[in-house]
């Protein structure tokens, strides 16, 4: 910190000298007064007031909270719309859902995977790729 009673040599611009000088002299004298609280006391007092610093910065806490809200929201939406993941009606009942929530899967010859979307709807997946 500069000594407030000393006139700095830069940062001044053109203005009537008498006014600036008078004010600046008074300003420096006024600013030179020490704070009411001594520095060592202020340091101790502020250290006592410092909050715990968490491991996660606020932005990460916000991100985690947003992810949690999104997950809960998704679960609720799935539950209400009857999509898999909720306790909605099973696709093999009257639902029009085609998701194989409880269908079985089997690979009879090792290259073809059969997924029973429901008892009347098998889905064959050829695992060997095209050409066979």
């Amino acid at each position, binding site marked *: *910190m500069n000594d407030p009673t000393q006139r*700095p040599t830069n940062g001044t611009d053109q203005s009537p000298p008498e006014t*600036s000088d008078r*004010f600046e002299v008074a300003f420096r*004298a006024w600013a030179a007064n020490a704070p009411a*609280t001594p520095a060592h006391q202020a340091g101790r007092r502020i250290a006592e007031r410092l909050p715990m610093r968490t491991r996660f910065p606020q932005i990460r806490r916000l991100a985690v909270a947003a992810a949690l809200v999104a997950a809960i929201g998704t679960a609720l939406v799935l539950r209400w719309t009857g999509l898999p993941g909720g306790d909605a009606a099973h696709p093999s009942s009257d639902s029009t859902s085609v998701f194989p929530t409880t269908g079985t899967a089997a690979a009879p010859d090792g290259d073809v995977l059969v997924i029973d979307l429901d008892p009347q709807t098998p889905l064959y997946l050829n695992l060997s790729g095209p050409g066979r």
Partner: protein
Amino acid sequence: MHGTERARPDHAYLVQQAALGDRSAFARLVETEWNRLVRLARSVVGEADAEDAVQDALIRAWKKLPGLDRPDAFPTWVARIVARGCFRHNRRRPALAALADAPEPRIVSGVEAGLDVERLLSLLAPRQRAVMHLTVIEGLSDREIGALLGITAGSVRAHRRRARETLERALGEAERGATRATAADHDIREEVTP
């Protein structure tokens, strides 16, 4: 940086320790910066609220400290937080601005060159007060002041010019008032004297 970024051998170490959560290191940093920061705050928010404003700003600085990339920039960085805190403080509770309704600046006797400095500062906008403080008290360049306050060097010059125009007007009025009072006093004395 002149005035604010002083090279102190243990400063960077203290900043690093404080960033890791060492409260005593932060307390020592506060000790080194306290007087300078309170003086800055005093110019912007006035004597009564300066220390509270600095304490609040320092607690904010503690929370943000792990994000400070350059430990040697701590003095400027923390002064910026204090200055912004003081501007916010003024918006919430315009303590100095309220003084603008008080009588015009008076010329007083005393060590402050016969001027009521706090009253004169109250006539300036908060940013103008900060610019005047950083110019007159800390002796920073326009570029350094701009970096600290987040404005351009041209804005710094404009703030300072307007501040000086305001001070010039106020001091002129105060002097005319003092002259009129002296003349009236002289007239009364002449009338009383046989």
